[in-house]
């Protein structure tokens, strides 16, 4: 962990303070007011007791003090509550803002940069990480503001009446944070190490439970039981040795505050006996002594909120400002971001501003009106591609590299006619997915351009462009919600019969209708409860309903059994009719149906022709197709 990163988190946390608006200051103000009333409260109490002891006053004589005290108590309770309420409101504002920023940022970096293995960690940061900030803004920050204000206000009253007690307080108070920081600095690192150890111990335990069957097969399961006990015990020993030092700061806090109160009491007592001080003032000072140290105690209590927040902030910085993090393993660390996406800053603005932040007019127009209207409007003329229902795509000398010096696609030129069926073939790493990602708009060419119906495809066309694409990946994602919502993903306002027709075309209607809740059946996480084939067919229904002029396929039957494959192929033939289809092919079937096959090798086009021609002429292609056949057989 570098020093730069250590200071980045506190700065990041501080920067978020502006989101709290006036609430944080308001909360501190209320807390301070309550602190000042504490002085009034002590004054009333000292008066009552002084008058009873030395003036023989009765309750009736003192009724005005009692009434005053009662209202001060009530008022302080109200202030404390309001202070807490505003502090939480301040924290909630930061949480709301950050969660939105983090979530938007995910879309900003786009699907290619999201490392699947880390997806769990991303989710944790967006959900729990944000929640972990609450105590920092609602407790730690207000406490830190009050830690100086309240003791100073108390001192203002103590000094004129009893300077000796004032000096004791003034001298001891700064020692507390001083020593706490001294000890804290030393133990912070150790503490972090201990936390990591705890996490590792927890992970080990989980690992053992998960692998219990394997352990049993090797007759090692009982041996591991001792290991678990031993690891936990080692952890206890090492943690306790850290804690012995870490708790010194609380020892010191306790020592300084308690011994100071004792000293104040004893010294006041003697001066009272010698008649150097009035009892009223002495008692007043004694009442305020514990209150003087209270904010310092609170600081000790809420200090760990800071540690926790810093831990959470580290992860947020990795997502929001990956460039600032030098560490090797950041959450969204991809050369992608640095080379391609960040370079074309357009994508940031285009994606975030138009897709997420607000509904730009273009977007609304597309959803509500026919495309012919669009092409008439002179204002939006340059912003639209003006696609009606046929699409011609031209790659003009397109190059793309994810990392400098390692081209994924080089000088690709290809023109695709309207309603043509194109299959893309190549071994892994040949550039098939890059080509698909360019078409999907997840990346944009670093050189050359993609031209759609004579107009260059630009970032601000993305919404309209994607509106014209239906896409089937190898493993479609189903969302939490009903089957209906999943089919209508692109057309939320589609009517019932259109949705059912789509399901029928995807040959999934019978299955859905056999479910008790039919189309309103809830789908669990990642389509839990559905087979791979059913998931793909629901996604296919989605494509049917979208009815887009361009169909992009990434071998959607790759992970399916033969039966499901046959069903999907049948629907796909129907869907492919009168459309432009571009598919990444791993199956013989797919290449045979294509009008033309594009053979890629190491980022370059090797040949473009139909299946028969390539079979006859291209040895590389013959080899690929041979592999397809083997795969198909293996599959069977």
């Amino acid at each position, binding site marked *: 962990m570098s020093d730069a990163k250590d200071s980045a988190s506190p700065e990041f946390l501080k920067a978020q303070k502006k989101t709290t608006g006036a609430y944080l200051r308001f909360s501190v103000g209320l807390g301070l007011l309550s602190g000042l009333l504490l002085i009034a409260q002590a004054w009333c109490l000292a008066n009552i007791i002084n008058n009873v*002891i030395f003036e023989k006053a009765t309750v009736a004589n003192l009724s005005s003090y009692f009434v005053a005290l009662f209202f001060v108590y009530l008022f302080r309770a109200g202030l404390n509550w309001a202070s807490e309420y505003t502090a939480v409101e301040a924290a909630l504002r930061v949480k709301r803002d950050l969660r939105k920023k983090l979530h938007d940022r995910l879309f900003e970096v786009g699907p290619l940069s999201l490392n699947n293995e880390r997806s769990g960690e991303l989710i944790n940061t967006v959900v729990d990480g944000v929640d972990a900030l609450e105590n920092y803004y609602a407790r730690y920050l207000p406490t830190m503001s009050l830690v100086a204000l309240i003791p100073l206000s108390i001192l203002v009253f103590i000094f004129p009446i009893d300077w000796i007690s004032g000096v004791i307080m003034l001298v001891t108070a700064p020692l507390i944070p001083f020593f706490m920081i001294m000890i804290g600095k030393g133990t912070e690192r150790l503490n972090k190490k201990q936390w990591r150890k705890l996490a590792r111990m927890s992970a080990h335990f989980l690992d053992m439970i998960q*692998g219990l069957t394997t352990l049993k097969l090797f007759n090692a*399961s009982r041996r591991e039981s001792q290991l678990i006990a031993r690891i936990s015990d080692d*952890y206890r020993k090492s943690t306790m040795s850290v804690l012995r030092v870490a708790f010194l700061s609380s020892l010191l806090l306790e020592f300084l505050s308690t011994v100071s109160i004792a000293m104040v009491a004893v010294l006041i007592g003697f001066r009272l006996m010698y008649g150097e001080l009035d*009892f009223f003032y002495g008692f007043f000072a004694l009442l305020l002594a514990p209150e003087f140290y209270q904010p310092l105690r609170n600081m000790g209590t809420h200090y760990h909120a800071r540690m926790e927040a810093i831990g959470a902030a580290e992860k947020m910085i990795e997502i929001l400002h990956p460039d600032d993090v030098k560490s090797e393993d950041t959450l969204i660390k991809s050369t992608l971001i640095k080379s391609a996406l960040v370079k074309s800053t357009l994508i940031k603005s285009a994606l975030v501003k138009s897709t997420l932040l607000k509904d730009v007019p273009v977007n609304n127009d597309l*959803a509500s009106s026919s495309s012919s209207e669009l092409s008439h409007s002179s204002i939006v003329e340059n912003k639209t591609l003006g696609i009606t229902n046929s699409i011609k795509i031209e790659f003009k000398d397109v190059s793309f590299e994810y990392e400098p010096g390692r081209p994924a696609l080089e000088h690709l030129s290809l023109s695709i006619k309207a309603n043509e069926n194109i299959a893309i073939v190549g071994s892994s790493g040949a550039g098939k997915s890059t080509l698909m990602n360019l078409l999907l708009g997840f990346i944009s060419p670093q050189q050359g351009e993609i031209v759609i119906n004579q107009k260059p495809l630009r970032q601000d066309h993305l919404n309209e462009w994607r509106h014209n694409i239906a896409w089937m990946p190898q493993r479609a994602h189903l969302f939490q919600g009903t089957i209906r919502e999943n089919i209508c993903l692109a057309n939320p306002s589609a009517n019932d019969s259109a949705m059912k027709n789509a399901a029928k075309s995807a040959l999934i209607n019978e299955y859905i209708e056999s479910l008790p809740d039919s189309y309103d059946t809830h789908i669990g996480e990642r389509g839990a409860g559905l087979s791979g084939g059913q998931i793909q067919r629901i996604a296919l229904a989605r494509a049917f309903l979208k009815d887009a002029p361009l169909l992009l396929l990434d071998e959607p039957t790759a992970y399916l059994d033969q039966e499901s494959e046959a069903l999907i192929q049948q629907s796909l033939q129907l869907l492919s009719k009168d459309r432009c289809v571009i598919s990444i092919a791993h199956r013989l079937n797919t290449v045979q149906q294509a009008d033309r096959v594009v053979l890629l090798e190491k980022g370059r086009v090797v040949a473009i022709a139909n299946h028969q021609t390539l079979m006859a002429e291209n040895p590389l292609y013959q080899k690929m197709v041979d592999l397809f056949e083997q795969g198909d057989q293996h599959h069977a």
Partner: protein
Amino acid sequence: MLSDFQVMRRLFTLIKPWWGWMLLGVVLSLLTILANIGLMALSGWFIASMAIAGITGAAINYFTPAALIRAFAIIRTSSRYAERLVTHEATFRLIASLRSWFYDHLEPLAPAVIQNYRSGDLLSRIRADIDTLDNFYLRIIAPVTVAFISSIIIVIFLWQYSQTLAFIELFFLVAAGVLLPLLINRWGYSASSRQSKITSELRSAVMDSTQGMSELLINDAAKRHSDYVEQLSEGLLKDQKSLATLNGGSQAMSGLLANLCVLLMLIIAIPMVNSEAIGPASLPMLALFTMASFEAIMPLSLAFQTLPTTLAAARRLFDIVDSKPAIIEPEIPHPLPDSADLVFNNMSLRYPSQETDALQNISVNIPTGTNIAIVGPSGSGKSSLINALMKFWPVSSGEISFGGVPIEQLDGEELRSQFAVASQHSTLFNSTIKRNLLLANRKATDSELEAVCKVAQIHDFIMELPEGYDTWIGEAGHKLSGGQMRRISIARTLLKAAPILILDEPGEGLDSITEKNMLQSIIENNKQRTLILITHHLSGLDAMDQIVRIEKGNIVSNQDD
């Protein structure tokens, strides 16, 4: 379902071994609180007495109280430090014993019972539940005990002065320490249960964002989904806000109750001072005593908040631990036979929730040292064969005999020592490659490790890693591909010295050439022991003595080569 009381009782039994540490923690914590009350009360009495002595000129022994005040300060300081160390020591000892306890009880249940808990979510719930139990002592037992005992001492002390004062104190302590938290818990119940529900919805929605982003973008649904996430986040914040408002109110209220208690005490005590029933110096003493006494009940509201979640966590764990193991081991197991002949005799196996047999009337004879392939599509019951053979699941009818002895009569652990199994679910642990391999044979030498890795076609790959066999694998270390993990787990299996070797789909995740080489090498190096090869395709079966085809739990053909 266990009642709250039963759960508590069992929890107490679990933590009993550490009662000494826990008691010490309670005593120290009690001392810390009482020393502070003593310090404040005595200080009040002291300065009032000194002031009176100053005015009246009466003689006063000021040495004892002044020394006591300092003593209280020192006791408070040192017992606070010791208390924190001791309670943490007790907690860590608890963590260790709870984990071992849970593991020891889970071990006999594996894999039959824990198969239901396979998914990562459930496992991490188990982990979270155990973490929750860690707090049982620190958050619940210790503060409740301390609050209870110190309240008794506080009330007894006041009783010396006046019964009324004692009752008032008791009333306010109970109101602020018990009634208020109970009330707040009840009011916050719906918000806090909704909060956990929305949190899990939010988690799924964000998961949809990360894993379904492409679909969202292509289908123009990104904004809609973001709005949905925002809406969930807003709902969560709303509930968090109402809970915070409630808790803030609770804190303010408990402070107010303490203050009102002081006020009421004064109103009762002042006439007593006026009538000289108690000395005048007792008045500031009583006021400061009362103020300080509320420290004792402060942690109770947290204890009340944590109790239901702790009990729920404990209940879930007890539910798992209480499940009956699928297999009851024989009391006096038959000694292991010398021969490793395996005979399946008309054996059937059915899982409890299933309507059909997973395996039906299986009869196979596998003499020692022969090679047999069991072939069939996935889902045909091949894995159930391993479950039955390993005594992970009981057979429903028929029997399996090992060396002529029905396996029910053999001890499961001894029986399993005779098999080296690479199952499809074999896990590699978060550790080094070497230590993962050594699991099979702790005494294996480096050259033995290399030999099995060469057979499993993974040695060359391991040597290419910068740290070779000491490479740390798993979540914390080097990511291996499925095929690499498979080969390491096969190497591990080969390392185990057992007369019967079972490989379940060894070629999974491997390209066909590697698979072929590996199988060939395994068969060549496997001269004496029985090999049972479970697979769904037919390549590399030339060297087999017997090929059994299984479909839907039935043997459809059995051919000897």
